[in-house]
Structures are given as structure tokens and as C-alpha cells.
């Protein structure tokens, strides 16, 4: 039992009190043809989406005011499948229209497990996601080749998910101020004023702390490709970190993705590399179902070694020891031949490069550093 009572978990204990606040769950599903082709022996998109829909329904059933969103990230771009702006959900519950839409859109077996008798909220979500998905699928199959085999658009999908999350958090805040009692609402207003003033001068973490809506993002991706928009992905991660939105990662496929590991690690999310996706729904319900507010109290599946490798700007490969341009912080795995930074074109100090290139000098530099370090603080008492 020693593993379970490890002090890693005790350290984060008691930071939040769990309560019945509503929470928003955004699922980002990446549909890169290559990634799904690679795992076609194990699972299919349809199976995974079925599991995800069960997962979404489970989330909706936990609390009446829970919210869900579904973002599809395809090489052609990302878009929301749910909520879908082209539909008004008030019209769906009539049985006749829903049957019609089911029959009209496509009679494929995709929608067969969405039955008439389902709980309305579940059905609205399921139908919208499935019809949107089949629409995108047919778009992809008819699209040009160059559009299909692009690099991952995950950063865009995350940005969409985050801006939607931002709105839901703000929305919830405004509701709570109108329903709250007079005094607390007055306090809230003054709080709001100060927080807006704060937000105007740079980003303010506090303005998110007051909102009651909890939210998290679950990314499901089979993509083994390390070709990712590094900078924008990083920016998205920081945005999530600031908003205290956990990014959970369910990585299918063969390899670990070090960038997604970093995403989960930085936002206190769960990262799991699911090598056998057959029992996906079980994994989803055990590892990812826990709300962020009670995560400190639970023992989460942790991955012991997070690789904080950076991405080389020239080659796109990940680097452990690299060179960093001091102007633009561009990361390079090797010193470029041109002696200049590939992104900002500033020339590097030749003496320094010569120093870095000389192999045995490492030892000498260490000596130099030692002496300079000891000598600097000494004078000027």
C-alpha cells in the first residue's frame, strides 16, 4: 500500500473543496486520416466516438447544469460539432422532426444507436455530434489530398475550446451575480470592477478564480506525428493554465507524445497513453471522469517521466540540449551554418560560437565560471 499513500498526493491535499458547481467538458477529437489508419486494426473512429458519447452523457447526467462541447480537429481545420450554431435545439425534441432529420441526413448505421426513447439532452448531443461528424467525414473523403495530409491543427482546436470555455465561465459569473442576494451582488459588482481594471493591465488570474463554472478539456488523438505547431500549442497551454482549465489527454496510437504530455502536466490534467483502445469507455470513466475540483483528493494515473523536450525550430525534431537565440528565444538543435538566427536573422557572436564549438573547452569553461562566480559577489561591500 505504500505506493498509494505516497506523499506526492498528500502535497496537493486540501486546495479546493468539492461542491456541486456545474462543470463544462469539452472534447477535442482529432481526426487525422493517417493516425486513424495506423490503428485501424485496433479500433475505429466510430467505436471511439460511441465511447465518447457515452462519456458525454455520463457527464451530463452528473449535474443538471453541466455543459458539454465537442470540437472536431481535422487537417482541414477545426470546428464545433456541439453546440452547432446552425440548429436551434428547441426544435429537435419533437419526435417527428428528429426522425426526419435522422432519416434525411443519412440512414447509415452510425445513428442507429441513437434511439427515440433516449433522454432528450443525451439525444440532442448525440445526434448533433454524429451528424456533424459524418458531414466532416464526407468532406474529408471528397477533399483534395493536400488538404487531408496537413500538420496537426490541435492548437487551433484547443484555442476554440478555450475561447468557448472563457465564454461559459463569464456567462456563469453574470448569472450568479443576478441571482445572488443584494449585498453579495453589490460586492460582486465591485469585485468585478476591480477585476476588470486588473484585467485591463495585463492578464489577471483572479478574474477566473471567482467563476463557479469548472471546466476541463479532453483531447483524444491517435496522431503519432510530432509535426505540431509548437508555439501556438504552447500558447494554448498557457492560456489553459491561466484559466485553471485542465487538459486531459487520451493518446491512442503507438507512441507517446511529449508535447501533449507537457500539456497535461502543466495544466494538472491526466495523460494516458491508451495502447489497447478496445475498452476505451472503461478507461474514460475511471481515469477521466473525475472532476478537477476533487482531483486533489483522488489518486490519479500519473506518468512518472514527463519529457520536457523542446522542439527545434529548424528541423522540427525534439531537443534535449540545444542552443537558444537570445533575441527571439528560438531553439536550435545545432548551430546553424550561416551564423545567424533562422527566425530573426540576427548574427551570432562568433567568439561565443567558437567557444561553444570547441569540444574540450567545456572543462575550461567550467573552470572559468567557477572563478568568475566566486569573484563577482566579493567586491564592493
Amino acid at each position, binding site marked *: 500500500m505504500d505506493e498509494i499513500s505516497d506523499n506526492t498526493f498528500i502535497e496537493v491535499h486540501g486546495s479546493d473543496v468539492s461542491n456541486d458547481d456545474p462543470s463544462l467538458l469539452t472534447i477535442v477529437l482529432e481526426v487525422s486520416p493517417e493516425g486513424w489508419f495506423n490503428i485501424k486494426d485496433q479500433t475505429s473512429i466510430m467505436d471511439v466516438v460511441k465511447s465518447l458519447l457515452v462519456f458525454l452523457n455520463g457527464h451530463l447526467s452528473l449535474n443538471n447544469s453541466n455543459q458539454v462541447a465537442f470540437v472536431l480537429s481535422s487537417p482541414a481545420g477545426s470546428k464545433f460539432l456541439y453546440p452547432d450554431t446552425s440548429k436551434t435545439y428547441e426544435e429537435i425534441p419533437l419526435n417527428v422532426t428528429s426522425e426526419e432529420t435522422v432519416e434525411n441526413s443519412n440512414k447509415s448505421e452510425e445513428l442507429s444507436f441513437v434511439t427515440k426513447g433516449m433522454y432528450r439532452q443525451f439525444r440532442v448531443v448525440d445526434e448533433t455530434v454524429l451528424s456533424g461528424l459524418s458531414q466532416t467525414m464526407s468532406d474529408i473523403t471528397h477533399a483534395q489530398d493536400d488538404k487531408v495530409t496537413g500538420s496537426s491543427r490541435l492548437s487551433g482546436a484547443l484555442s476554440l475550446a478555450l475561447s468557448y470555455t472563457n465564454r461559459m465561465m463569464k456567462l456563469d459569473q453574470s448569472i450568479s451575480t443576478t441571482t445572488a442576494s*443584494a449585498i453579495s451582488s453589490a460586492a460582486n459588482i*465591485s469585485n468585478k470592477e476591480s477585476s476588470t481594471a486588473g484585467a485591463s493591465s495585463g*492578464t489577471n488570474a483572479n478574474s477566473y478564480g471567482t467563476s463557479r463554472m469548472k471546466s476541463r478539456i479532453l483531447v483524444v488523438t491517435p496522431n503519432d506525428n510530432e509535426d505540431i505547431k509548437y*508555439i501556438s500549442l504552447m500558447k494554448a497551454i498557457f492560456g489553459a493554465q491561466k484559466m485553471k482549465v485542465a487538459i486531459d489527454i487520451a493518446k491512442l496510437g503507438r507512441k507517446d507524445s511529449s508535447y501533449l504530455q507537457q500539456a497535461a502536466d502543466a495544466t494538472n490534467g491526466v495523460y494516458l497513453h491508451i495502447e489497447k483502445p478496445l475498452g476505451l469507455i472503461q478507461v474514460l470513466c475511471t481515469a477521466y471522469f473525475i472532476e478537477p475540483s476533487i482531483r486533489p483528493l483522488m489518486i490519479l494515473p500519473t506518468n512518472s517521466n514527463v519529457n520536457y523536450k523542446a522542439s527545434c525550430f529548424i528541423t522540427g525534431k525534439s531537443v534535449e540540449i540545444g542552443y537558444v537565440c537570445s533575441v527571439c528565444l528560438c531553439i536550435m538543435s545545432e548551430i546553424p551554418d550561416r551564423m545567424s538566427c533562422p527566425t530573426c536573422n540576427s548574427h551570432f557572436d562568433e567568439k561565443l560560437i567558437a567557444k561553444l564549438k570547441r569540444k574540450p573547452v567545456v572543462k575550461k569553461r567550467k573552470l572559468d565560471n567557477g572563478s568568475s562566480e566566486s569573484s563577482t*559577489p566579493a567586491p564592493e561591500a
Partner: protein
Amino acid sequence: MESDDEYKGSSPSSRGSFSDSDGEGVRRGIKTANPASRNANDKKGANGAYAWEDEYQRTWDIVKDDDSGQTLESLIQNMIESRKKKIMKNPTAPYQRGIIRTLVVVIDGSSIMLEKDLRPNRFSMMLSLLQEFVVEFFDQNPISQLGIVLMRNGISDVVSDVNGSPQFHLDKIRQLRGKQHNRFEPKGDPSLQNALELSRSLLRYNFGNNINDTKNSKEILIIFGALFTSDPGDIHKTISSLVKDNIKVKVIGLSAKVAICQEIVNKTNHTSNNFNNPNYGVIMNESHFKELLMDCVVPLPITVEQQKEIEASKSVPLLKMGFPTKVQPTLSSSSGGHSLDFIQICACHSGSRTENGSDAAAIQQSSSVIGYRCPQCSSKVCSLPTVCPICGLMLILSTHLARSYHHLVPLVDYEEVPVKGSYPSSFCYGCLLQFPEGIENIHKDSKEKLETMSSSRYRCKKCKNDFCIDCDVFVHETLHNCPGCENQ
């Protein structure tokens, strides 16, 4: 100060201020219908009864438009617009900044800081703002370091050493304000010279030293409540040595401008004009205080001189950095390699830090849980960023570097879509918020009214997607990613 005293002393004034702050946002442009009834000191209500017998009034319902015809909505709209304009001030052209900064914050702990013009008093107000500042500072300058110095009773004390960990500073600040009888209670006179000398010696030692000195920007931020300084020697000598060390000083005054501060600021920042120096601000109110403080978070642009220096040598330094792997030794039983009860000791905390016993112990404990392994020599360190104590390689998380990217590659501003009869978009691209419909027959409206109307759409110049104002602010202040451009 005893809590009882504080309560008695401040209770009448705080009640008065409550009624002030209550309507503050509204009174700027709008007269309230019945200001007398809202005065807490006037116990008679509007209908002649005592205030507590009065019917409950919702003050926001009795707000009346003032003569200029501004409604509450339009005021709020203006506030939003002004926020928006603040973002517009952000430069969109990338330029070099001193990314690796070392900042010493000098705070005033003299007796004048007990003044109650800021609530509850200047000192605790400053400390609570400082806490926010520390968090924000490390958020935006992840590879920078910070130290805090207190001017009190004619001398200056180090509150927290120059260090890269926000939690460390927050703990120290909490100690300052925490206890009733703490030894840091504001007292005596401030001494600028002592504080500057101490800060200067703190700044001489920082972690970037052995890599490259020019890359570091050394800064001092003084929060100065008093109007005088009592110094042991010639402060002008201190100023010239600050100039020599290339240390930049910023001052935030809490009461009025002081000539000596102006001189310090002008000389250390190499600016000649006496007034309107952006580095010396005097606060007008609480939110202005916060604004001034938060302005110091953004990395400084490289000065003209440094620019010349760089251009003269036609070269910039290249830094060698290592990106270590995070290890959780006690948990890695599944991946093999370490047994569960194998204690790991980090390489960075030896006996050198044991002067402060409890701190060192705490760090040691946490280091046995999570550490980072240097990719070059495989020694373990417990916190980042740092310089590897064994091989001298600068260790950093890639996330630390990436956090500064938005300063280097700023996002393009969105521009407001002009008011038209109809628009191609009906939903915000980012958050799916429904936009208001286009307004037909706008020609009938006067020109003035046209200005107050807005299409509520803000379009990215690159991807031509429309966003709402909330998404615009969010994208530019928090996310720094245009969702539309990312999906192209």
C-alpha cells in the same frame, strides 16, 4: 497594530467609504436619484423613517440618466472600449526585450505607510498588490528573478532573496503582513540610499552572470510612500554607481513626486525630460496603483544604447541550454530503475543553504519527490530554471521559454467591423455567441448616434473571421493565439 484599535478607528470612515464605493462606478457620469437617502451617516431615510426601517432599495434600479443622455449600458460599453483600447496600445511589431530580468522591489516600511488613505492602510494595500504583482511577474517573465527589500527605520532589510520561485516570495510577503506584532511593522524613516545600495549588491549576483551579462536586465522598482529620505551618505554617489552598473530604477510614489526620486529615475534610465517620465508614476487611486504596478510586469524594451551596442558588434549571444526530463523517482516503479524507498538527493542543495534551517529542510523534502535530470550530466536538480551545479549548463523548461513567446511574436489586433445593414457572420467564431443583427436604414440616424452604435464584430485581418468583444480581449490578453488563423 492592535486589531481592536483598528476596528474602532476605522469604523466610521469605512462606513462612509462604503457608501462611496457603492455608487462609485455609477456616479462618474450619472446622478443618483436620491443621494441623501444613501448616505450612511444620515440616519433618516427618504420617507422620514430610520434607515433600517426603510424599505429595501435596489440602488441600481434608481439610477437615472444624466443630461448628456448616457445610459448605463453605454457607459459599460465605454468601459469595455477603453479596455479594448489598452490592448490596442500593445505594439504588434516584435522587438527585442530584456527577457531575462532581475528585479529588486524596494518597498517602503516607514511610519508614513500606516496612513489610511489606502484601505486598510498603505502598507497592507501595498503588500496585497505586491502579491498579485509577484504572481503576474513570474507568469510573464518565467526565466526572471525577483527580490524584495524593505526600507524601515532608517535601514533596509532583505525581505526575500533574489530568487526565481513565486511561492517563496509569496510566503515572505505573507510573513510581513501576517502577525500582529511582527518585526516588520512600519516604523521610522525610509532611507533610499541604504535600499539602493542593498539592491545593487543583490543585483550583482544573479544566475545569468556566467552565461552572458548583457542579456540580463537589472531593475529596481521602488514603491515609495514617504516624501523624504534620510540617508547616511551622499545619495548622488549611489546614483552614479547605479548608472555605472546599468541598473534601471522605476519609482511608484504613493503621495507626491519627490525631486530625488525624479533624479534617480532620469539618470538611471538615461532620459533627459524631467516630467512625464513613464518610469516615475504617482498613484491617483487604488486601481491606478495597481495599473502602475502591473505596468512593470512587461519586459522592458532594449534601450537605444544597447541596441547600438548590438548593432556595433553585429552579433547577439547564443545561449546553450538544456531541457531536462522531469523525474518522479518514488513513482517510477512501473518503468523500472528506481526502487520505492530509494531516497534521491538533488545536486543543488548542499550545506550551503542550511543557514535558514527550515527552508532548506522543506526544499530537501520536496526534492525527494520530484526532480529534473540534467540532460548533459544526469545530475538531479529540484527546481527550474537554474544552472546545473555540476556541469554549468543552463537548465530550463521549454515551457519557460515558450511563455515569453507572445512578447516576441505579438498577435495582430482585430479591427472593428463598420456598422452595416447586414454582415456575413452571425456567430462569433471563437465562442459561438450570436451577434446582433445588422441595422437597416442607418442613414436616418444622426451621425452622432452612428458613433455610439457598434457592429459588435471584431475581425481578424489575417483569417477574416469575426469575433465578439469578449473573445477579442481573451484572445489578446490570455490566449495570444488567434483561433481562426490556427485553423487555416
